């Protein structure tokens, strides 16, 4: 376990509570990556060009590193390559910022080929703007090539660009496979439900409770990196529930782009379960929900949102009511539950059922023939059969999506036409 020191530069007159929340989140992120936080440095000032924090604060940081034997410094603020170089030279230890920390976490958790590619893509996108500067800083004294006229700065940048385009191509192919799979699932009569929300809100615990299956659940950020999908049946309607990666505030666009294929499961769902931790203070829940709304606003298509307020067992009923009043304007269709204590799950299931895309009812009669039986079997797959009567003809009451109903009607017509012509 490495000892780390966390640093945050706060703008003068900025919201202190907000700054504190951000700092705690950084601490949480550091712990998630197995770091031991041994010191904190906070400064109120506008950014310094050389080191982000002031020169005096850098001296203070150096002393703290020596005292606590820290091996790494993590900045909340985004650092450019010159700043990273200057601070690491002064402190004689590794310096990273919040985004690099997130990438480190993602890299350690990535297990499948696709998630590894996504992490590499995000790392390369992060590195690209810094590539030129990094090489020129490290090779200040050297002049490569014949008589110092060559240059490897460009080639390093070109290498990164080439690798990015290769990864994009590979991820594009897997994305197409995903889309095809999603369409297939829709056609098979499944409705798509996705779990979304801020990281560590308890999405995986809820997933486990809903589908009765073990997926890794831990009290740390970004436990889930790749979407997991399982089937779920509520009131005989079949649906696929997907657990996804959590959101985080100020996630830079290059990172969202890199994980687009993971998040697309959320954006193309019929119903989104927006999970929030109700045991947290109201301003924090508000902030986290606002981040989710922000991401939804950019990407969401036509989906119903259900706000699942999880971890209700940790606070009293009065507190739950108070929080609901305070955050209600950001919580569409709120349902209070505790995934761990399995409380409120039935109400949640009922709400999910109500928000599913509307299915239509149809009573149809089919000839008792081989073709008729194959239509019956198809309808059992695609929709919900309420009633079936095998007499001289097959009479059935079904409920299904509009496309299925129209297809069933035309098939019914076709079968009767062909049987009468025989």
């Amino acid at each position: 376990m490495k000892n780390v020191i966390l640093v945050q530069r706060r703008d003068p007159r900025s919201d202190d509570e907000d700054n504190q929340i951000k700092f705690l989140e950084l601490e949480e992120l550091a712990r998630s990556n197995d770091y031991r936080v041994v010191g904190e440095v906070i400064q109120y000032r506008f950014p310094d060009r050389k080191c982000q924090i002031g020169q005096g604060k850098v001296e203070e940081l150096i002393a703290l590193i020596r005292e606590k034997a820290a091996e790494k410094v993590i900045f909340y603020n985004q650092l450019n390559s010159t700043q990273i170089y200057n601070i690491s030279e002064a402190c004689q230890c590794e310096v990273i910022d919040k985004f690099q920390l997130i990438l480190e976490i993602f890299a350690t958790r990535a297990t499948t080929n696709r998630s590894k590619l996504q992490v590499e893509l995000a790392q390369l996108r992060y590195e690209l703007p810094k590539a030129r500067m990094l090489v020129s800083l490290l090779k200040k004294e050297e002049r490569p090539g014949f008589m110092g006229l060559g240059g490897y700065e460009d080639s390093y940048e070109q290498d990164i660009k080439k690798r990015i385009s290769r990864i994009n191509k590979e991820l594009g192919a897997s994305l197409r496979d995903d889309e095809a799979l999603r369409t297939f699932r829709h056609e098979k009569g499944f409705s798509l439900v996705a779990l979304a929300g801020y990281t560590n809100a308890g999405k995986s615990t809820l997933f486990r409770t809903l589908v009765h299956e073990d997926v890794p659940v831990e009290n740390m950020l970004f436990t889930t990196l790749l979407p997991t999908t399982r089937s779920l049946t509520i009131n005989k309607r079949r649906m696929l529930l997907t657990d996804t990666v959590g959101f985080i505030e100020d996630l830079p666009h290059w990172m969202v782009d890199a994980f687009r294929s993971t998040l697309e499961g959320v954006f193309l769902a019929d119903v989104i379960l927006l999970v929030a931790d109700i045991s947290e203070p109201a301003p924090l829940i508000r902030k986290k929900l606002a981040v989710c709304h922000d991401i939804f606003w950019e990407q969401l298509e036509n989906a119903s949102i259900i706000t699942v307020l999880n971890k209700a067992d940790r606070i009293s009923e009065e507190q739950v009511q108070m929080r609901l009043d305070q955050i209600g304007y950001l919580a569409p269709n709120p349902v209070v539950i505790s995934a761990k204590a399995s409380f409120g799950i039935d109400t949640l299931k009922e709400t999910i059922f109500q928000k599913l895309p509307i299915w239509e009812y149809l009573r149809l009669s089919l000839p008792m023939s081989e073709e008729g039986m194959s239509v019956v079997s198809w309808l059992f797959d695609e929709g919900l059969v309420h009633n079936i009567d095998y007499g001289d003809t097959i009479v059935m009451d079904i409920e299904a999506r509009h496309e299925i109903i129209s297809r069933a009607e035309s098939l019914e017509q076709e079968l009767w036409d062909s049987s009468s012509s025989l």
Partner: protein
Amino acid sequence: MYNIIAVDISGRHLMGEQYFMVCAAVTLSVSASQIRRVGEMNIKSFNRDRAPDVDYVVQMIEDTVDGLNTDATIVVEKGDLYNQPEWLSKIMFSQDLKYPESLSERLGIEIAHHVSLSSRRLLIRKFGIE
């Protein structure tokens, strides 16, 4: 369900030798993710020979909102107030103000944006402003 006044300003760029801006304020009843009802609208145009500063933007929004009969929280894009922190913008207004958070508030601003943009285009065409 709660009421908001969504505000948007179009035309904050130099056109010929002046800034011809249109501010639209729309009252809406919204839930967390949907707009339930669109109420009143007020549109006001402003002419200025130099770029609008924060004070002028505040004045434009206040003047436009004054024409409405609804009393609700004004919702305006952070960028419209030069990305000032919310607490600073709040104290500059006589009415409650906030930046958009929920999907419905963002939708509200989108409506106000369509109103201000189309009104500005119409006015430019009608008065032949070049």
